């Protein structure tokens, strides 16, 4: 993993195959830094069984469109 936020941003942009327009990189880099802070705040240390808010709920075929 790249060491600086700028390097991580550049690496992910390349991985995502995003072609940024002129001038977009600076704004997105700022946003990316804020995004990673938010990811850290939300955290990843959850009990194994902690379910997400939205899970798929199957319905019988006859229920679709009712």
């Amino acid at each position, binding site marked *: 993993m790249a060491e600086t936020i700028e390097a991580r941003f550049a690496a992910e942009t390349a991985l995502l195959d995003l072609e940024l327009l002129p001038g977009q990189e600076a704004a997105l880099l700022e946003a990316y830094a804020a995004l990673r802070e938010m990811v850290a*705040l939300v955290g990843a240390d959850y009990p194994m069984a902690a379910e997400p808010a939205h899970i798929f709920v199957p319905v019988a075929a006859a229920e679709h469109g009712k």
Partner: protein
Amino acid sequence: MTATNPCFLPITAAAELIANRRLSPVELTRAYLDRIEQLNGTLHAYVRVLHDDAVAAARAAEVEIMTGNHRGPLHGIPIGLKDIYDTTGIPTEGGSKSCLGRVPTEDATTTRLLKQAGAVLLGKLTTWEFAIGGTAFDTPFPPARNPWNIEHDPAGSSSGSGAAVAAGLCAMAMGSDTGGSIRWPAAWCGLAGLKPTYGRVSRAGIMPLSFSLDHAGPLTWTVKDAAVVLQVIAGHDPGDPASAKHPVSDYHAALVGGDLKGIRLGVARTMFERDCVASDEVLAAFNRSVEVLRELGAAVSEVELPPLALYNATAFLIARGEGFAIHAKTLRERPQDYGGLARDRLTIGAYVRASDMVQAMRRRLMLAEATDVAMRNVDAILLPTAPDPAPRLAELAPYFGNQRPTYMRPFNLTGQPALSVCNGFDSTGLPLALQIVGRCFDEETVLRIGDAYERATPWRERRPSLQ
């Protein structure tokens, strides 16, 4: 700007006059169209005015009413729709160059319900691009302006909806709310803005921004008007996978008068005195509002919610992840067809990893449960809607971070009903607002509290002084 101007009648008052055949829907519609003609060049609230269609719909309403077929309180009432609500045969462009010329072949469910109730569609209203692009000058339509001071922002994303209702350019406007986009313009334009419970009102036929956070709801001059509209648009819709089958209440009957005895209110003080400190005038107005509600008989205590930054971070990841998924193809193929703000705010969602998204959804459930626990002993939560009154146009931060969050997004995450009501004006005459948050599917209590507050305060007597 007089009490006799029909454009300033609340829906309930106009409806009574129409039902009693003392106000003609055609005359009312023409009065609004004249006012739009006079003011829209300044306010930019409408992107498209449907002059002929509106007069024709008003004529049809008038004929029906005169022949004894009165459909209800929205029959003959002129309204506007945010330009992300699909309207058959009428362009719905989401404020974006990428959708210019897009003409839906079906109405959104809410559009259809409002038409069935006899409402008269005056036109389509300005929106932030795809309900996310912010106050921008590089999109096909100029940004709406705040009728209380046209140098100031009306907020968004339902910017035209807020400006139009406040300026008397329609009796009601529909907005959408993913992170506050109904309540925020309601707050800064001095209106009632209701975000119903997630699933209460169909989003089918409304351009999506974030599937699990999007809500549809009305902006009105009074809380009572919001109850009238909710009665028409609430209910299960198989066209919206998130639509709830929960029974629809009688919202008007819930407005029992000014007495709030038996109602328990919890002030979420940490949010606006610790997490994001509200400005002095917002705080003072809020504290006065709490005293008014206490005098009306409500029991007031304090509740402590999880940190605002945690709600906002969780909602941000979900909203951006879902938003990018919706726009990914067009963003890659035609990025130049987006304004700069919308392009950046959507593109950042590409960097939300699958695991980030799942963790955010896990956190979401925890926050919803924690909020529910905090509300164990209260019927509703009180807090300001926004920490500040409206800034000058285009001074809003790009909101990439958590620098100065509003107090609305937590309740998109939890899905709870939340109502913004005007609770005074700052020293420059800009509106301030109180937010009332209820339990899921308990819109009645939220509306009851808001209505009682409005009856006890003089804020509905003041209108913007536009010429």
